[in-house]
């Protein structure tokens, strides 16, 4: 059973810097105080701007893409796309602006699992995997990094990924739908293609659009390769109290639920809460047919 006692807090964060990283995406560094529990790769935070910065009421969930010690606490990195009211308001923040940050939330990738970590990123889903690559590098573990997107320009954060992997000689494998760089095709096709060449046993950690994660989950279930997928959901609280972020459990997981002592904060027999039990789930835990 995963850890129950939540370690999150809500703190004031300061914009250290914000820069464009291509294809309309931004990289944001936020300073948070030492009291903040350092997040693990795959965990997320809730960013809250307030009425003098946005009309959005609810905080916005965002994966942590980097975390490093800084002078008075931690510096957290985020990679995001300004697509709506909340993220556009975020993009308008200048250096030294403050916002509220709640976290770390949810459960991250079980990077401690033995085997070759295969990180599979789709589009802006690369964010938590950059952090995962970092963490693996810190514990001196080599990983394989698969990164797919629609086209070359959509491979946002690629230089960051390269920088991280170079340090440890992890390998990066690219693919694009249009073949503008790397393998032409989906990242799962790429995975299928190179899996046999990688050092077994493999452990897949993936993040990207749900359609991609579905394909990764199916691939890994068919191959018997363990995989851990960082899911998304519309959220209100991020802490488990609103019950707003259900993901459907697989029939097997439902059966298992009855015997287990899963905390109700995580969900019930039918639904797993993305924010507390997830956002990272094992492929076998979810009913991929019913995921949108």
């Amino acid at each position, binding site marked *: 059973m995963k850890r129950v*006692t939540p370690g999150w807090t809500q703190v004031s964060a300061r914009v250290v810097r914000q820069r464009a990283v291509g294809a309309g995406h931004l990289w944001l560094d936020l300073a948070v105080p030492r009291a903040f529990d350092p997040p693990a790769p795959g965990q997320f935070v809730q960013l809250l701007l307030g009425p003098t910065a946005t009309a959005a*009421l609810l*905080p916005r969930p965002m994966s942590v893409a980097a975390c490093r010690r800084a002078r008075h606490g931690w510096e957290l990195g985020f990679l995001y796309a300004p697509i709506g009211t909340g993220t556009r308001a975020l993009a308008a923040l200048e250096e030294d602006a403050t916002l509220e940050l709640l976290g770390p939330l949810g459960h991250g990738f079980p990077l401690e699992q033995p085997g070759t970590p295969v990180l599979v990123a789709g589009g802006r889903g690369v964010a938590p995997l950059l952090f995962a690559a970092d963490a693996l590098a810190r514990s001196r573990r080599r990983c394989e990094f698969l990164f797919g997107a629609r086209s070359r320009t959509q491979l946002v954060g690629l230089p960051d990924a390269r920088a991280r992997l170079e340090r440890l000689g992890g390998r990066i494998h690219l693919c694009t739908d249009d073949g503008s760089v790397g393998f032409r095709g989906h990242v799962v096709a790429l995975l299928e293609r190179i899996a046999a060449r990688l050092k077994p046993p493999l452990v897949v950690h993936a993040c990207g659009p749900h359609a991609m994660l579905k394909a990764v989950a199916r691939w890994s279930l068919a191959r018997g390769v363990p995989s851990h997928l960082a899911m998304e959901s519309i959220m209100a609280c991020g*802490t488990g*109290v609103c*019950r707003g972020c259900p993901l459907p459990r697989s029939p097997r997981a439902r059966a298992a639920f009855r015997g287990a002592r899963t905390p*109700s904060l995580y969900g019930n027999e039918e639904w797993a809460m993305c924010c507390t039990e997830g956002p990272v789930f094992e492929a076998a835990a979810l009913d991929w047919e019913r995921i949108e």
Partner: protein
Amino acid sequence: MTPPRGVDLRVRIGPMALANPVLAASGTFGYGDELAHVVDVAALGGVITKTVTLKPRAGNPPRRIAETAGGMLNSIGLENVGLQAFVREKLPRLRALGATIVASLGGETPRDLERLLEALGGERGVSGFEINFSCPNIARGGARYWAVPRRLERTLQRLRPLTRAALIAKLPPDVTSVADLAVACEQGGADAVTAVNTFVGMAVDLEHMTSRLGRATGGLSGPAIKPLALARCHEAACAVRIPVIGSGGIMSGRDALEFIAVGATAVQVGTASFIHPRATLDVVEEMRALLAERRIARLLDWRAVLADPAARPPAALNRRRTSHG
């Protein structure tokens, strides 16, 4: 600023004495222990637990949340652990935290509610029961079913003998007259009414041509509904002598004082806890500070300063201009 000590925030709801008038709203605070590491629940007026039903409910399919201007729609569908687990697992933990506990009960029929109260009515450490007559998100036994004064009155008459704890009726806002419902509850023997639950609303996803919720409609909460909830709370407070508990868009101590000024005895903080997990406690503290600033020693001296129970709602506010400011 005057130190915020010394302001007497105590209020009574029927047999229940609350240290202060701020309750965590049902369905927004889990079973009371989920946020306990950031909110000292014993310092709240009370915690209203997630509505519990006889059997566990898995809740509605996604999507369950849709943010709208100044508010959010939810379609949770009363996901809850059911009576048995509630008694075995949830109540003991909440009791251990020292909270004043109000259990929210939901049923599809008066009989369901009777059975729940038969099981829970004498439960140690439960100070009150809030009967959820107003869930907008379930197919049966929701707000539409209960929004009939006679049904409310008769149901409460059946429930009243089953407990000595406070019996609170939570009312839906989407009715022609909240006052009529409140009066029916008073006559049925309720100790208080809560005004109001979420408003029925809808949101459309034009990209996918579906509802933005798993069901067609959801319940709207948050600051967007505050003016509407305030008017309904005022209406209810003008209509009955039992206490009215205000709910709807309360995000701050200021908001809470507004509800109390128009006649509420206590308030509930809901959606705010999703934005600031400490919101309930922040409301208590801000309220205390605001009263201290105004040199008001007892919350009860503030209550209804803007409500004239004899007058019809529209005329009430302009008539009195007391100067506590």
